[in-house]
């Protein structure tokens, strides 16, 4: 049976059964069985109850904010992330290496620290917020604040997916296009940009997925008012604190299903991006 399943012949290297067995055991204990608990708890609800929880006005408002702000943050990062990646790969300027290293800061900085810092900076009397206050723009404790926090945490994704593709881009292709009479703008739009598209979409999807689940940084910068500035993870947290476990798990199921779909999409995108680059190189 095992022979058939794993196409096992004679293996030179040892430890296949041990390592795969341990991998599956650890994965099941830490991830799969606890995750199954979400679906078990939700199954205690009847279908109408489930539908009622996930389509309540409060939930719908939270989806709108979570999805809307995450999409917008990922879009902002796509534009500026592309510019940052471009500048880091193509140009030389003072402090470039330092800037390059610091792009990963949102990965390394704990979300709670990011949350309190952004909330303080973008508050009406904060270092950055004071410049927006006279314009009548309030950032902290509004939906705009949610957008700022989600932009911060998604920042490295686009830069880090686009950067290696730009680095590997063969200058000969640009030279060929230029010698055939294309101007710089045409070379960018018709030659460089299409090559970057798969990486850009992958980065976008990664940033979007990360923003959708984000909790730590948003909870500080948002005023967390139901129907207005409450994101889905916060709504789940509120329900947990009220010991409304079936309600919390029902919303979690919606988010989980969406995360799975997004994860699959990202994997397909990455496979597509790799194939695209492989054909480019050969």
């Amino acid at each position, binding site marked *: 049976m095992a022979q058939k*399943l794993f*196409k096992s012949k004679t*293996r030179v*290297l*040892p*430890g296949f059964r041990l*390592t*795969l067995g341990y*991998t599956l055991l*650890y*994965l099941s204990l*830490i*991830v799969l069985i606890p*995750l199954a*608990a*979400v679906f078990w708890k939700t199954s205690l609800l009847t279908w109408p109850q489930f539908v009622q929880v996930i389509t309540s006005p409060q939930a719908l408002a939270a989806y709108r904010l979570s999805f809307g702000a995450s999409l917008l943050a990922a879009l902002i990062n796509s534009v*500026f992330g592309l*510019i*940052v990646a471009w*500048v880091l790969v193509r*140009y030389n300027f003072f402090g470039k290496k330092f*800037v390059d*290293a*610091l*792009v*990963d*800061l949102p990965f*390394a*900085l*704990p*979300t*709670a*620290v*990011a949350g*309190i*810092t*952004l909330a303080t*900076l973008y508050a009406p009397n904060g*270092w*950055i917020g004071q410049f927006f206050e006279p314009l009548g723009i309030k950032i902290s404790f509004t939906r705009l604040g949610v957008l700022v926090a989600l932009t*911060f945490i998604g*920042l490295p994704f686009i830069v880090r997916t686009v950067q290696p593709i730009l680095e590997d881009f063969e*200058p000969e292709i640009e*030279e060929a296009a*230029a*010698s055939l009479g294309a101007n710089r703008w045409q070379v960018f739009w018709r030659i460089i940009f299409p090559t970057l598209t798969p990486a850009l979409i992958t980065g976008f999807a990664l940033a979007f997925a990360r923003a*959708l*689940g984000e*909790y*730590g940084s948003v909870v500080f910068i948002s005023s967390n008012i139901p129907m207005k500035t409450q994101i*889905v*993870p*916060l709504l789940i947290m509120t329900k*947990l604190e009220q010991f409304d*476990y079936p309600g919390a798990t029902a919303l*979690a199921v919606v*988010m*989980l299903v969406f995360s799975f779909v*997004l994860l699959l999409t990202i*994997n397909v995108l990455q496979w597509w991006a790799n194939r695209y680059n492989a054909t480019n190189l050969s």
Partner: protein
Amino acid sequence: MTPVATTLHLPRAGTQRRSTSEPPWVRWLLITIALLFLTLFLFVPLIAVFAQGLNKGIGFYLKTLSDPLAWSAIKLTLIAAGISVPLNCVFGVCAAWAIAKFDFRGKNILLTLIDLPFSISPVISGMIYVLVFGAQGWLGLYMNADKPWFPWLAQWLNVHDFHIIFAVPGIVLATIFVTFPFVARELIPLMQAQGRTEEEAARVLGASGWQTFWRVTLPNIKWGLIYGVVLCNARAMGEFGAVSVVSGHIRGETNTIPLHVEILYNEYNFTGAFAVASVLAFLALITLALKLWAERKNAALHAASQ
């Protein structure tokens, strides 16, 4: 193949070719936009953490950090990271060995499953352990069942008032979950790229399995492993959402550093919150430095071997 490509790329760094470069004003505009964006979202926040933490002077700063509650939070964070990082490290090496060195069906599904914790909201990551071990979860149902399987076990658990949720084990479990893929994710592509010929040669020459791993595989993946451990540790020490769900927020007992920051902040002790936060920010900077160092070492190792 590779050396040719490197020489071709070399002139690009120094000289600017007119045909494949932008006019200077475009260059400066793009650099300005990029730096302005990064200033608003990265540099200013980073400086602000330290500035805000120190704005009542160094005395207040040190007093906040030497507070017993801060110390117990630091201790718990070290415990959580100290348990979760080695466990995920062992898992990462095992998973990478099985996935990179052998062929089997369902490999892509396994890879996707290992990635799962990355795509799950921290709040949900914490919640799943409440559902398993909480009073209304599987463990709670078992402990309160009328006729449980293994009555002696249920009795023992009840007598010892066994708790996972709202206690240290829950925090450790939630930390393990959120840092689960880090080491595996780093090692799998690295070991796949290296193939298995070196290990096979070692085996053919008479090395045992362990010798092969310690003397051939480990030196090759050393920097990748360190890189994964550094990232895993940073997340373990900084996790907020998942830990917040399973911690009972008992001061001095189930508070980690990020939760301590939250408590101080919600008490309007902003300077105190930023003082503690600056420790985490400093840790993040060390993480970035170590990450850069491991990346360079790894690149040098592989450049040398080619």
